[in-house]
C-alpha cells in the first residue's frame, strides 16, 4: 500500500468527503425515481418469469422464463437488496426500502448479511485475518496465508462455491474454519443456524417446492427453471463479487499496518485502504445495473451508503483524487479483470516454490 503521512491522509479524507457531501446535498427526486424504476423492473421480471415458467414445455418459453427469473433475482440481490441494506435509500423514509427491515431474495438472512458484509467486510476490507470475505475462508488468494495441500484443489472449490453461491453466503457466518480450529463452539452458533435454516428453508420451499407443486402437472419443468434461475444468479453474482477485491492489483493489508502501536485507524487511512483494495470493471449501462454497480467497487467501498447509481457520475472525481494522491485506480475491462482473478486462484493453489517460477503476469497478484 502507498505510504502516506498523516497530513496527506487528512487531505485525502477531505477530498473524498467533499465528493460525498456534494452527492448527499443533491439526493432527492432523481434517486427515488431511479430505485422505484428498478423495483418496478424487478417485479415485472419476477411476475413475468413465474407466470411463463409453467409454459416451459415450449423450449423458447422455458429459456425466456428462466432468464427472466434469473435476471429478477440478480437485480433484486445486487441493485436493490445489497444497496438498500447498506442504507443507501434510508433517507427516503420508505419502509419497503429500509436497511433495517429489508429482507432479500436469497438464502442468507439480511441480519446475517449486515453483520458479515456491512460491518466486517466494509470495515476490515482486505485485512488478512480480519476480513473473512477475503477468499471466504475457502480460497487462498495471497501469500499471507501459508500454503496447505488442500489448496492445490482450490479451483474446484471455487467452481463449487460459485455454483452454490447463495448457500455459501448464507453459511458464511458459521465460521467453519474457526469451528474447525476449535476457537468457537458449535453451540455458540446455534442461534445463527436456526436463522439460517429459517431463511434458507424459506427460499428452498418457495423455488423448489411451492411453485413446482402449484403447477403440478409441469412440476419438473418449473423445478428445472427455478434451479436454472438460481444458478444464473449464483454464477453471475459470485463472478462480480470476485472481481471486486481479488483482481491482480487489489491489495491486501495486515492488522499491523492499520492498528500498529495500538492506534485506531484514521478515516483517511480507511479511505486509502478502500481505494487500494478494490477494483472496478468497465461495461455498458446494463452491466452496471446487473452488477448492482459493484462494477464501481472502488466508489462503493469509499461511499457504501451513497445510492449506487451515482457511482458512474462520481467515478471521474474519485479517479482524479486517486491521481492527485498517486494512488492506483484499479479498473479494466470485465474480461481482463476476471482473467486476473482466475489466474490468482490458480496461482495460489500452487506451493510458493512453484508459484515463484511462474512469470509475473501469470501470477495474478501485484508484486
Amino acid at each position, binding site marked *: 500500500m502507498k505510504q502516506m503521512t498523516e497530513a496527506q491522509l487528512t487531505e485525502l479524507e477531505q477530498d473524498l468527503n467533499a465528493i460525498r*457531501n456534494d452527492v*448527499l446535498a443533491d*439526493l*432527492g*427526486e*432523481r*434517486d*427515488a*425515481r431511479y430505485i*422505484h424504476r428498478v*423495483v*418496478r423492473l424487478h*417485479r*415485472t421480471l419476477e*411476475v413475468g418469469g413465474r407466470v411463463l415458467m409453467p409454459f416451459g414445455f415450449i423450449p423458447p418459453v422455458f429459456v425466456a422464463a428462466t432468464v427472466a427469473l434469473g435476471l429478477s433475482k440478480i437485480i433484486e440481490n445486487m441493485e436493490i437488496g445489497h444497496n438498500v*441494506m*447498506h*442504507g443507501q435509500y*434510508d*433517507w*427516503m*423514509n*420508505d*419502509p*419497503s426500502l*429500509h*436497511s*433495517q427491515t429489508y*429482507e*432479500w*431474495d436469497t438464502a442468507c438472512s439480511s441480519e446475517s448479511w*449486515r*453483520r458479515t458484509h*456491512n*460491518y466486517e467486510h*466494509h*470495515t476490515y476490507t482486505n485485512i488478512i485475518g480480519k476480513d473473512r470475505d477475503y477468499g471466504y475462508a475457502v480460497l487462498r488468494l495471497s501469500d499471507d496465508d501459508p500454503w496447505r495441500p488442500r489448496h492445490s484443489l482450490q479451483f474446484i472449490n471455487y467452481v463449487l462455491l460459485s455454483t452454490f453461491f447463495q448457500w455459501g453466503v448464507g453459511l458464511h457466518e458459521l465460521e467453519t474454519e474457526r469451528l474447525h480450529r476449535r476457537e468457537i463452539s458449535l453451540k455458540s452458533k446455534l442461534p445463527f443456524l436456526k436463522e439460517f435454516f429459517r431463511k434458507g428453508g*424459506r427460499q428452498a*420451499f*418457495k423455488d423448489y417446492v*411451492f411453485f413446482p407443486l402449484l403447477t403440478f402437472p409441469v412440476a419438473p419443468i418449473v423445478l428445472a427453471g427455478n434451479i436454472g434461475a438460481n444458478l444464473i444468479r449464483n454464477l453471475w453474482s459470485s463472478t462480480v463479487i470476485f472481481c471486486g477485491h481479488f483482481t491482480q492489483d487489489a491489495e491486501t493489508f495486515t492488522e499491523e499496518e492499520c492498528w500498529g502501536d495500538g492506534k485506531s485507524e484514521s*478515516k483517511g487511512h480507511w479511505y486509502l485502504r478502500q481505494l487500494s483494495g478494490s477494483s472496478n470493471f468497465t461495461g455498458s449501462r446494463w452491466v452496471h445495473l446487473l452488477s448492482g454497480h459493484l462494477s464501481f467497487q472502488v466508489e462503493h467501498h469509499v461511499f*457504501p*451508503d451513497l445510492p449506487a447509481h451515482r457511482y458512474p457520475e462520481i467515478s471521474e472525481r474519485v479517479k482524479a483524487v486517486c491521481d492527485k494522491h498517486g494512488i492506483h485506480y484499479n479498473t479494466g475491462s470485465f474480461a481482463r479483470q476476471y482473467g486476473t482473478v482466475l489466474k490468482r486462484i490458480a496461482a495460489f493453489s500452487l506451493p510458493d516454490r512453484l508459484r515463484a517460477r511462474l512469470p509475473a503476469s501469470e501470477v495474478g497478484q501485484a508484486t
Partner: protein
Amino acid sequence: MLARQNHTSPLQWLGRQLFNRDDAVAFFDPLLERINPMWVQEYTPARVQRIIRDTADTQTFVLKPARRWQGFAAGQHVNICVEIDGVRHQRTFSLSSSTTLWHEQGLVTLTIKRLPGGRVTNWLQDQLNTGAVVGISEAFGDFLIPEPVPPILFIAGGSGITPILSQLKTMAAQGFRAPMTLLYFVQDHSHAIAREHLMDLAARHDLLTVKIVTTQGSSEPRYLTDADLSTITDLSSREIFLCGPQGLMALAGELLDARGVSRDKIHSTYFSAPQTDLSSQNLGGKVRFARSNLEVDSTGDAPLLEIAEAAGLTPQHGCRMGICHQCSCRKTSGTVVNRLTGQASGPGEDTIQLCISVPQGPVSLNI
C-alpha cells in the same frame, strides 16, 4: 405508522415465504401503482377530489380514501403521508368535515394552514393538485364529544378550529341537543377559517352561539379574558374543548382554573409540535428509550449510541463512524443533529444512525 394490520395469519405466513415481507400484497405495489395509485396496499391511499381556498394561507383538501379506510369520530386526526423530493413525510392533521359526509359520500376534508418554513404544509398548498393520491392513516385521538352530549364551551385559536369544525358540523347534521358556545380567536377576520359557514350554522341553530374575536384589531392585542368566560351561561355545567396555539391554551387553562372549573372537564388537543430553537446548537437532552422503558439525561455532544451504552443498553451497531448503518433505528420524536454534517433532523418520526446522532432537546427512540 400508515401500514395496515393484516390478521390472516396462514396467508401472512405464505406471503412471508414467497415474498420475504409481512405485507406480501404490497410486493405488487410498484406494478399496481402504475395501473391505479388507489390500488396500493402498503398504506391506505386517498385521492384529492377538490381543493378549496379558505383564507390567504389556508386551504381545505377534500379527500376520498380507499374503501377499506375505517372512518373516524369527529375531533380525531389522521397522519398524512406524502413524497416530497423523493422523501416520504408524515404529518398529523385534524379532520375538519362531518362524519355524515364520510358516511354519505365517502369523503373527508383536511383544513391546512401554512406554517412559516414548514416543509409539508407549504408543499401541500403549492404542489398538491386535484387528482393526486396521498397516504392516510386510520383516525386516532381522544378529543371526542361525550355521549349524551353535554353543554359545551369550545375555545379555538387560528387553525385550531379544525377538529371543532368537524364536531360542530357533525352535531349540526344530527341536530344540536345541548347549548354550545364557540369562542374563536383569530388575528383578523380575513384569517377566520370557515367564518361564513360558522355564522350560517349559528343562524340556523338556536342552541349554537358563535363569537369570533379578532386579536390584532386594535393597538393592544386582544386575548381571552375572564370577561369572555363570564358571558357564558352556566359555565360550571359545561365541558370545555380547547384547541389552539400554546399561548391560548395556557391562558384558557389559567382562567378556567381561577373560576374553579375542574380539570377533568377540560379536553384539549395540540395542533402543532413545540418548536425547537435551531439557531442555538444547544446539544444534549432527555433521551427516552421506549422499548427498554428507560429515560436518561445527556449533555454535550455525546452521540445516542454512547448514551444508550452508558445507560446499559446494547443497541445493534457496527463501525461507530456512520458507515455501516448497523445502528440505524427509528426516532419517534425529538430533534437530533448529525455529527458529520451538523444538520438537524426534523422533529417527527424518522430513521437515524445512533452512532452519529446527537440529541438536541428531548428525544424518544424505538429501542
